[in-house]
């Protein structure tokens, strides 16, 4: 089927168009349209997934159409092993997030569903774009719906959080814009070259940029991605945005948006600026290890469950970045699978926190205790997700963390096992803060009388969580299903990086 990526990418817009014609009082219909649309998108993305050839390292399902011909800007999309799972993750989490906020959003529902669908287009575009201009357009455009979602439907300090989120992301991405312009210009200075933002052409051009300039280019891109990830010390927007955002916003933020940063590192930083990436590996690896430990320690002292989960993201994403910069097959593969894992488990945690918040209107750990007796189903689900998050063998988190630690332990480019050793403490810390929190919330006696009458999960809520749990177990038990699609592409990237490390020089070849 041709153009399937375009259909997938823009299918949520159809839902927005439909919503325009709906009366804002028809609440159930509005929600149903939103969920139905996102399910159609999910179905389309599954067609892409099943049609995807894992052995092929090239971009697949590619489409290209001239957009601004004067600057060789085109509408170019495609998926490869690095992006395919993230595309599916996005389409998978969007209906879940929408269904998860079925009852918690009552105000301006139509706008809410529209923004969620707009956000989905933006996220999919980021993962599918194979033109830097197109990528940048989606990267920036996606800010608008997220800004509104946090700002309108968020908690008490939502305005502060929304503005901070917007400004932080803009700050990084604007410098990336200059780097994109400079890359295009550089392509035009080569003999016979011309200005271009086509990623495939730049893959052959950019690695030949002299190291001095490559460093600046790398820093501009990496800063933008590091803010998004977020890497310590650029993470301060994250707790605010995650805590203030409504449940579905947090799910998407943690589940997908953060991955845009790590995805960017793999898609752009490594292959475009290999030498600079290797030069900066010690710095980025150090920052990610600090992030792992720091995020875990700060999570430990949180009194608010949602904040705790937010800081745990800083820690978990540190693992992903460490895996990427190990530049070994195991490490990068682990990072790829850990992106998915984190999307699933942290997404599920935010959903669960949202469910308890809907009932009690508080997220303070001290307000709970002994919930296991009152809400057994909720507790069971929460514990499974907790185990997944802390990396218990048999569940998904273990696979990712294990591969990352293995990869970074053996990494030639990292050059030291210290990173892996320190990062491993993060695994222990995460068990401490998660389990300690669970103990205080779920076990012991019921300390607050308000909690005695809490209702257990409804069927809708169980339906929201079950698909996520299914994948949490599936990846844990049989990870090959999810490692296979990215294997070939990761191997290609890693081989390329190792060649550069071993001194295989890359010369810039002008665009043809």
């Amino acid at each position: 089927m041709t153009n399937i990526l375009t259909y997938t990418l823009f299918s949520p817009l159809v839902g927005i168009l439909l919503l325009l014609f709906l009366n804002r009082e028809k609440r159930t219909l509005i929600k149903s349209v939103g969920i139905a649309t996102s399910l159609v998108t999910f179905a389309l993305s599954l067609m892409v997934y099943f049609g995807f050839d894992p052995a092929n390292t090239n971009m697949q399902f590619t489409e290209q159409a001239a957009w601004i011909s004067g600057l060789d800007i085109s509408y170019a999309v495609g998926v490869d092993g690095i992006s395919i799972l993230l595309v599916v993750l996005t389409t998978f989490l969007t209906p879940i997030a929408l269904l998860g906020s079925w009852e918690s959003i009552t105000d301006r529902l139509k706008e809410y569903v529209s923004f969620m669908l707009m956000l989905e287009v933006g996220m999919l575009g980021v993962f599918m774009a194979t033109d830097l201009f197109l990528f940048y357009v989606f990267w920036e455009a996606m800010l608008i719906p997220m800004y509104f979602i946090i700002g309108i439907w968020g908690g008490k300090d939502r305005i502060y959080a929304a503005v901070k989120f917007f400004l932080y992301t803009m700050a990084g991405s604007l410098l990336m814009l200059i780097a994109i312009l400079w890359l295009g210009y550089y392509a035009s200075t080569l003999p016979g070259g011309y200005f271009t933002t086509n990623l495939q052409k730049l893959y052959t051009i950019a690695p030949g940029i002299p190291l001095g300039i490559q460093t600046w280019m790398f820093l501009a891109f990496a800063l933008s991605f590091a803010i998004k990830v977020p890497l310590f010390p650029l993470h301060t927007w994250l707790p605010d945005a995650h805590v203030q955002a409504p449940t579905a916003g947090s799910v998407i933020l943690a589940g997908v948006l953060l991955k845009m940063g790590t995805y960017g590192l793999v898609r752009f930083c490594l292959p475009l600026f290999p030498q600079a990436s290797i030069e900066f590996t010690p710095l980025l690896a150090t920052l990610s290890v600090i992030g792992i430990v720091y995020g875990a320690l700060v999570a430990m002292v949180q009194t608010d469950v949602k904040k705790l989960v937010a800081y745990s993201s800083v820690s978990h994403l540190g693992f992903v970045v460490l895996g990427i910069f190990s530049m070994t097959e195991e490490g990068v593969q682990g990072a790829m699978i850990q992106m998915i894992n984190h999307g699933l488990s942290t997404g599920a945690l935010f959903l669960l926190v949202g469910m308890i918040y809907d009932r009690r209107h508080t997220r303070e750990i001290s307000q709970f205790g002994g919930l296991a007796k009152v809400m057994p189903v909720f507790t069971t689900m929460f514990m499974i997700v907790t185990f997944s998050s802390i990396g218990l063998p048999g569940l998904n988190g273990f696979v990712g963390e294990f591969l990352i630690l293995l990869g970074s332990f053996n990494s030639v480019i990292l050059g030291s096992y210290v990173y892996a050793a320190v990062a491993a403490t993060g695994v222990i810390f995460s068990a401490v803060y998660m389990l300690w929190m669970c103990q205080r919330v779920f076990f012991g006696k019921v300390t607050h009388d308000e909690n005695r009458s809490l209702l257990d999960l409804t069927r809708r809520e169980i339906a929201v969580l079950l698909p996520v749990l299914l994948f949490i177990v599936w990846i844990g038990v049989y990870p090959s299903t999810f490692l296979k699609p990215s294997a070939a592409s990761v191997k290609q990237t890693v081989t390329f990086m190792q060649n550069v490390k071993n001194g295989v020089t890359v010369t810039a070849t002008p665009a043809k």
Partner: protein
Amino acid sequence: MEFFSTTDLLGASPILVLGAFSLIALVANALMKNSAPVVFGISVVGLLASAGASMYTFSENATAFSDMLLVGGYASFFSILFALISLFSIIIAKPYLERAQYHYGEFYVLVLLAAIGMLMLGASADLITVFLGIEVMSVSFYVLAGYFRTNNASNESALKYFLLGAFATGFLLYGIALIYGTTGTTNLLRIVTMYPQAFGDPLHIIGWGLVLIGFGFKVAAVPFHMWVPDVYEGAPTPVTAFMSTGGKAAAFSAFVIAFSVPMSMKDERLMMVTAVLAAASMLLGNWFGLSQLNLKRMLAYSSIAHAGYMLVGIASATSLGQQGIAFYLVSYALTNLGAFAVIAMIEKENGGNLSYEDYAGLARRSPGIAALLAMFMFSLTGIPPFAGFVGKYYLFASAVQSNLTWLAILGVITSLFSTYYYLRIVVYMYFREATSSDALTFPFMTRLVAILCAVAILVIGIVPSLVLNVLTEIF
């Protein structure tokens, strides 16, 4: 001896048509009672006819009146833009003036006269035409700024604009005189043939420097920006809309042609001076924009900042930069007209309702209008998929191309400042609860202008080729 031919007349037809209609409007205004609606009608027809004439001459690529005026292509493109801006401005103005009980025909006549000046600027192939265009346009602006003659702020605005404007024109003329003195001509097409010899004369470069000051004043670049906030704030809102879009676009259209002459030498000094003006405008405009509480003043500082972005295109001295300016002018004009249309609707007769606070909860009181204003703010910030982004992309690309990467970096950093104050209005509209529940009225035509502008910035933001393909033809 023949002074002009029919081809000259045809070439100048957009200007002549507009001139004829403005005279008809003037006479109608003098002879009829309650003439304002009639004059409005005549003006609309006149502007459309002028735009039609521009379209008709578009494919020609010639000059008229002994190389005084450009015909077709570039001139037509800008003539159409100016006609559109004037048309939208008077549509916004009509209900506004009616409500303020200041609805008189001379308003429209003045707008038409200013438009004639703009058309001359966009078509100028000679520095004398530039001067004439600037004067015709500016004198009309001075009067328009003081149009609310019983209002002190409006009077202050007019006087300030006039005094400083006259001063700046002096610089422009002095510069033209020096250029004439060193080359023996004021014709841009001929000056360029005398390069590089003539360029070596320091007086020649000083001449261009003085011309730069004159233009700098008209486009509201730092350090010649002092008049902007007070004039924009004091003038009636539709006039501010007209000045900030039409006035700036016209000045830039002549600026681009005139400076394509000295910039063709890629002179480091001239590039650096322009780059410094651009940098100062972006920095100070956006910096002061942060602390504004009044929307018209905020847009005044934003206008200074946007002049800075466009100056980047001049400083780069590349055709990419020129195209960038032209694209930016289109998107900036549409965005600002739309924003001012919304502001004019929200504003009260007594000049109230102009602060951020007054926009609190607008998204609930009138979701459609709030959505429009939000789109304009995102476009001014330069966020895709709106047109403002593509404009900035071109301008900053031109800077990078000319080894002015520092200017592009400064540009994006100052854009970040601007994000804060543009978004602040979105914060008030969407994230805060309404403090007032006064009924707001939205005249149909003004709303239509705002909607058209919003659709246009979205469409050319997503399909920029619509405009860019025209631009590659005219440069």
